[in-house]
């Protein structure tokens, strides 16, 4: 299955080509994205999973390798689906820079998910932040330029930290392969292990939007166009989550024996608290979504940091719920804010009456984020609460604070929903009905998962299974390659 490399290579080629294609760029974008999606679907269907591809024929610990296991393929699909949905929001963009950056981002996020090598992972991360910064800056106004610059400075500082960590890993373990690191990690002494994990985490957490590493989020969400927001959320965010799962749970599982997991618990519930509380007073809908996505990532991180399989399962449910719900919300926000030419949700009064599908989708997404039953988010919340209470005092306090924060979330989201439905004359507004359909289908998906989570449960089970039996399901596949 060496062809898996195409997932990265073709977008990269497209990135080059986009400099010359001009008006064909949009078509290329669809073609490449569809290719990636269909290709990854084909990989899923082929039944060859898991497999390992050594780039250039170098055997696993020595060369760079691409690994496809259950986790990989699911996240690959998530990334590519997000890409497809996001690009439907792209309209009237002529500049080749946008397309070029998009292709780089697509290649980088696919690469992040596929790679089995630490340094390669760092490279792809760097590339993706680079691309996102470029995309954020696309609007060329004060807001986006400032946001992009600050994001770039922050993320390159962070990635320098991770580079240092990679250096340390290489120095101490003599390898950069994920699987090899996992095997050799037990020989490492505690202090250097801590230092490595801390340095690596500090770059990881920037992408995962954990407080206090998340100051870029609001500005870049606010400054960029909707499709870019969806890239940030659906592609970069999802790839980051993949990285967190892969690296924390499979490469550095020893982390749970140290105090770092405690620190992570504290940071993550602080993230939730701060994110929700800030969103309460915010009137700009895009910023509300930014704050809320911070909080959701905090919740995810909380589940991950607890470290029990129950809580990881909850975290994965949250990922699914947040992934779909935020997508819905961004689309709705875009349609509504374009319609009234304002991002303040108080100006969007009455739109829910004229275009109820959008508003209903938004409400369903919001309810899912709040963790309401019969919506996808509930199962995640339930699992996390159950396992947090079984874990210990700190986790119990944390989960209580998170639940209080989710009350705040409920209040502001439903207030926004209410605003959509309140009465105002909106006759001069026009939204294409086609655009109402995408979020509605996604919202129905949320409901379906909420009511009958069996299919997601299967996927989540496979992921957890891989984490549980990491030596069999991941490490040996790579290292025993001839």
């Amino acid at each position, binding site marked *: 299955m060496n062809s898996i490399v195409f997932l990265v290579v073709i977008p990269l080629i497209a990135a080059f080509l986009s400099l010359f294609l001009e008006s064909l760029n949009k078509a290329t974008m669809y073609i490449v994205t569809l290719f990636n999606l269909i290709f990854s679907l084909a990989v899923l269907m082929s039944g060859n999973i898991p497999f390992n591809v050594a780039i250039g024929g170098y055997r696993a610990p020595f060369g760079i390798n691409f690994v496809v296991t259950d986790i990989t393929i699911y996240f690959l699909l998530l990334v590519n689906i997000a890409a497809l949905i996001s690009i439907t929001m792209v309209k009237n963009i002529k500049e080749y820079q946008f397309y070029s950056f998009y292709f780089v981002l697509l290649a980088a996020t696919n690469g992040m998910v596929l790679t089995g090598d630490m340094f390669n992972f760092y490279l792809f991360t760097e590339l993706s932040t680079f691309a996102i910064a470029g995309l954020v800056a696309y609007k060329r106004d004060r807001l986006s330029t400032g946001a992009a610059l600050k994001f770039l*400075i922050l993320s390159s500082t962070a990635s320098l*930290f991770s580079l240092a960590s990679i250096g340390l890993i290489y120095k101490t373990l003599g390898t950069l392969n994920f699987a090899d690191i996992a095997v050799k990690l037990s020989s490492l002494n505690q202090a250097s292990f801590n230092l490595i994990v801390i340095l690596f*985490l*500090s770059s990881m957490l920037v992408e995962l939007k954990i407080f206090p*590493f998340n100051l870029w989020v609001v500005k870049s969400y606010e400054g960029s166009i909707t499709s870019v927001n969806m890239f940030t959320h659906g592609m970069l965010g999802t790839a980051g989550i993949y990285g967190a799962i892969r690296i924390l749970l499979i490469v550095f599982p020893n982390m749970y024996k140290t105090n770092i997991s405690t620190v992570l618990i504290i*940071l993550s519930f602080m993230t939730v608290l701060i994110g929700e509380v800030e969103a309460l007073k915010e009137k700009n809908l895009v910023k509300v979504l930014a704050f809320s996505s911070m909080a959701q990532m905090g919740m995810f991180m909380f589940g991950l940091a607890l470290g029990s399989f129950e809580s990881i399962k909850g975290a994965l449910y949250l990922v699914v719920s947040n992934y779909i719900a935020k997508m819905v919300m961004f689309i709705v926000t875009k349609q509504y804010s374009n319609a009234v030419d304002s991002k303040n949700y108080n100006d969007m009064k009455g739109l829910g*009456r004229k275009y109820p599908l959008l508003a209903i989708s938004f409400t369903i997404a919001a309810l899912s984020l709040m963790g309401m*039953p019969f919506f996808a988010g509930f199962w995640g919340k339930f699992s996390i609460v159950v396992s947090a209470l*079984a874990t210990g005092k700190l986790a119990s306090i944390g989960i209580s604070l998170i639940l209080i924060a989710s009350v705040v979330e409920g209040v502001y989201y439903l207030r926004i929903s209410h605003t959509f439905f309140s009465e105002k004359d909106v006759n001069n507004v026009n939204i294409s009905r086609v655009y109402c359909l995408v979020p509605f289908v996604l919202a129905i998906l949320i409901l379906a998962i909420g009511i009958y989570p069996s299919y997601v449960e299967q996927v989540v089970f496979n992921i957890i299974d891989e984490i549980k039996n990491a030596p069999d399901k991941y490490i040996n596949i790579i290292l025993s390659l001839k």
Partner: protein
Amino acid sequence: MIELLFIPLIATLFLAIFIKNKKVTWPLFLAVNGYVLYKLYSIYGMWSLSNKFDIGYEILGAKLTLGVSNNPIGWYFAFFSALITFIISIFSLGFNQKSKENVSVIWMLIIFSNLGIFFAQDWVIFFMMWEVMGWTSFFAITNARDKALDGAKYYLALSLIGASLMLIAISLLGAYTGTFAITPSIFGLIQVINSSNKIGIVILLLFLTTFLIKSAAFPFYMWPQKVYAEGPEDYITFMSSVMIKYGIYPMAIFIVPVVGSIDLPKILNTGNILQYVIGYIGAISAVLGTLLAIFQTDMKKLFAYSSVSNMGYILLGFASMTIVGFEGSLFHVVNHMILKAAIFLTLAAVVFRTGESEMHKLGGLVYRMPLTFMTFLLGIIAAAGIPPLNGFGSKWMIIQALMSRKMVVFAIAMIFASTGAFMYLFRALASIFLGQLPDRYKDVKEVPLTMALPMLIMMVLMLLVGVVPGVVMKPLTSALKAVGYNVEVASLTVLEGSLKNATIDLKIVFYMFVAGVIISAIMYLFGNKSETVPQNDNYTGGEYPEEWGVDADRFNYSYAFYQPFKEMFDPLLEAISIDDFFASVGRNFEYMSNEVQALFKRGEGAVLLFSIGVLLLILGGLII
């Protein structure tokens, strides 16, 4: 069994599709409610009906199956809820002719969750339905109108807090007793508590808090007045009569059996500590609700506080932990449903015709709306707990139970509250319907037939349950018997108290009352005939004020009705304003929100904060 939940859900979809068309939605709403009522009637006694769904989700290492099953106490609650809902939905038919918004979709969803709560077999599905009730109520209360937003937000926040507490409680319960099913978990929890485990008490208190929030008991007594004041009137009728009981149901099936049979230190040999906790919450709710109701000027707020006070009675009945008190409380649940529905229907009718809910701006409506007046009159007589209308029997049973357990403080609180009830009830009667009719309401008409009919039904119900309490007590006692309580099935008109020689035959009370009225009517007819004269004739001695160059002023005593009394209580009420507390919490949250936002607005500190974060990580990882 499952179709009972399924039909409302399907109906919700249809209602949503036809939301613009009032001619379709409200009859459909009525029809579905009728179906639910019929279905509930038909499954009486079939306690083994149940459905289980496997949703393929694992929790605590076991597959989670969700189940609904018919159970006696749940049926009792569900049936009477459905009955009242059905009557209210007849009223809605006429009431919503003019309104722009359509609350029926959300309302149907609430009915669905309502049935789910009553027939839940395990805590997970109970919780799911409970949460659905929370957010749907938010939309139902606002009903897309901005003025109701504050109250709705308050309610939403409270119910979300409650639900969070319950989620924690359920998780702990599952972890410690190993089951999510409701009935086994009762025994499990009793065992956990009896083996001197503090966590058991914590679980119990978490559940209790959740239920208290929904039933608007003491520390959470503010939401009814905020919500009822602005919500759509017909929905508010449903909320005040039916929905406020949702907190009582789980208390009856879970809290009461657990508290009744755990080993805890006793107070004065009359009851354990938790019993007293519930009792004091009930007593404070009853007294405080009464006092606050006395001082309201908005009629909907007044009756909102009256509901708080009535919830207090129900809690007092639970606190007595005697079978009579328990029966009394559950009986009062239905009584309060009926009488509150009757009262709120009349209020809705008044608002429908006048658009006014401040009592001192109304007056004299009895001249224009006699039927509404009669319903209201019977409603307040019932609410005051005066025989021969309903309200009395249940209150009597609760007081009997409290006296037999020598819980004197609670008994006195109860009497205080029910005597104080005369004050606010009469105040509402006098200010809305009696006194002099303002000129602007000269052309007010009696309500149309669809709204008059439910009122008539309510009057009949109040009298029927008042004179023949057996129509409610029989199903109640047989339900309790089916659950395993040691009770006898009640007879039609006789209520049993728990003290010596304490049985009352409400039939005889009714006859006595009729006899008294007949004697009195004979006296009345015996007197010389009377003449109906306009108001001013009595003042002016037959002269016309216009001829003297003066206008006839109309004086009504309806503002600051109990001013001297209020002044007595002002210091007390200022001292214990829970509202201020919650408001300050809300303010603090918003203040915090502003502060932290400033952090993100500046943005140049990003790298700085990042480094601080790294430092924290390092310090945390190495030192902690």
